[in-house]
């Protein structure tokens, strides 16, 4: 018996909650992630899908099923983005997968990359600085310090997995031109894991302070706005705040989803809600960062 989880036809941060809802629907049986009708997916969608598969494997010890997109271009993009490098570990794949490996381009700045430890974070930062510096300074009009700051933000987001998730995760970076949504070029960082999430990570040290208010939402607020950490070291808990400051300086956006809540620092060009609670539950944490082209350009 299988339980069908619908992958939205346009699968990104705006449709992720729809995916999470389908993923969280009760019912026994082996989940079948139906991506057959997908005609577009962002890196956020792809790393989220991997996290869903990983969570199933870690909970049940069995692979979930996955039907791949029917659209050839979409399928080839998934392959170039590196999705099929890692998907076979978590999914029993149904459908023909193209025999092309991950490759970077002017759009795929960092193909889906596993984050398991400190060495992976070094690799991600080195790669992105090599590949993205020209795009950040040339196409986005950011100065050299913004390029270095981009590496810092990426590193801190990945370390959130290494230090707190209790499992591995993924990161991907892509550049787009958002004609309708923003009318500018953007660089998007997507980071996801299927780990314990912010609430469980912070529970032992922070839940008493919040009492009945303790939830996924308050855990996110504590981490992002109060800079708290589960580790009793006064130097801990600065990373997410540093990311927020960096993105704020460059009119960027950060959105962090964990459990049933999502907290975002919303720039003027976006219409997202700053805090959404009561979302369909989803394992681990998912971070989205968007750096838009500088207005002066």
């Amino acid at each position, binding site marked *: 018996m299988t339980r069908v989880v619908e992958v939205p036809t346009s699968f990104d941060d705006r449709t992720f909650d729809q995916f999470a809802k389908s993923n969280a629907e009760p019912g026994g049986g082996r989940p079948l992630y139906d991506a057959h009708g997908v005609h577009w997916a962002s890196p956020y969608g792809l790393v989220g899908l991997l996290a869903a598969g990983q969570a199933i494997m870690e909970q049940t010890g069995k692979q979930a099923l996955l039907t791949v997109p029917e659209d050839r271009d979409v399928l080839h993009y998934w392959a170039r983005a590196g999705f099929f490098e890692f998907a076979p570990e978590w999914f029993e794949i149904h459908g023909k997968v193209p025999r092309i490996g991950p490759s970077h381009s002017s759009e795929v700045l960092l193909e889906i990359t596993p984050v398991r430890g400190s060495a992976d974070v*070094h690799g991600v930062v080195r790669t992105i600085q090599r590949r993205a510096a020209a795009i950040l300074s040339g196409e986005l009009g950011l100065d050299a310090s913004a390029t*270095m700051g981009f590496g*810092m933000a990426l*590193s*801190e987001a990945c370390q959130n997995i290494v230090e707190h998730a209790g499992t591995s995760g993924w990161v991907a970076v892509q550049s787009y031109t958002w004609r309708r949504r923003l009318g500018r070029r953007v660089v998007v960082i997507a980071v996801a894991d299927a780990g314990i999430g912010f609430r469980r990570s912070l529970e032992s040290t922070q839940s008493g302070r919040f009492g009945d208010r303790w939830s996924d939402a308050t855990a996110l607020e504590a981490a992002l706005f109060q*800079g708290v950490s589960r580790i009793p070291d006064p130097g801990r808990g*600065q990373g997410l705040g540093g990311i927020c400051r960096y993105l704020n300086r460059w009119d960027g956006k950060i959105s962090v989803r964990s459990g049933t809540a999502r907290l975002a620092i919303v720039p003027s060009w976006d219409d997202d809600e700053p805090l959404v609670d009561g979302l369909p539950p989803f394992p681990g944490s998912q971070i989205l960062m968007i750096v838009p082209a500088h207005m002066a350009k």
Partner: protein
Amino acid sequence: MHNIDLKTVLKRKVSEGYDDLVTRHTGRAVRSGVEELLAELDRDQVTVMDFSAVGCLDISCADEIVGKLLLDHGRARLMLLRGLTPAHCDAIVTVLERHSIAVVAQDGDGGFELLGPIEPTVRDVFTAIWQHRWTALPDIAARTAVPAHLVQRALAELIDRQLVRQEAGHYLAPVAR
């Protein structure tokens, strides 16, 4: 003056292939390498931590290296940062503010700057000292237009925090002579 090239320490303690000071894991290893060097160095000499060859510096690594070294050794040694990019400074200042500590940084032109949360008067007194290299309290008060008793208080704080030195009734920036 002792110069510690952090990229050399990074390569020796973590990996030959790394250029960036990122992750707490790397920061802990580099700090341990710096502490091994500090143990062999004269406490009375200025210790320069040189970031010139370092690529990216993240906040976690800055906390492990700069934050913890200053907290553990900053009262006993005069430390100076050199070769910082604006992005390095951003990460370091975040850490300094978290711990309410300060450090002297030297820019490419040889000028000195205080990084970290410092009262404006104390910062003005520091600037007057490094601009004139070797100066006494009355001169500082005259140059800053800060009352002498406030200059005295600022000097006491700067000396206590190992941000300036005092020699024969005069004050000087870390490596002014």
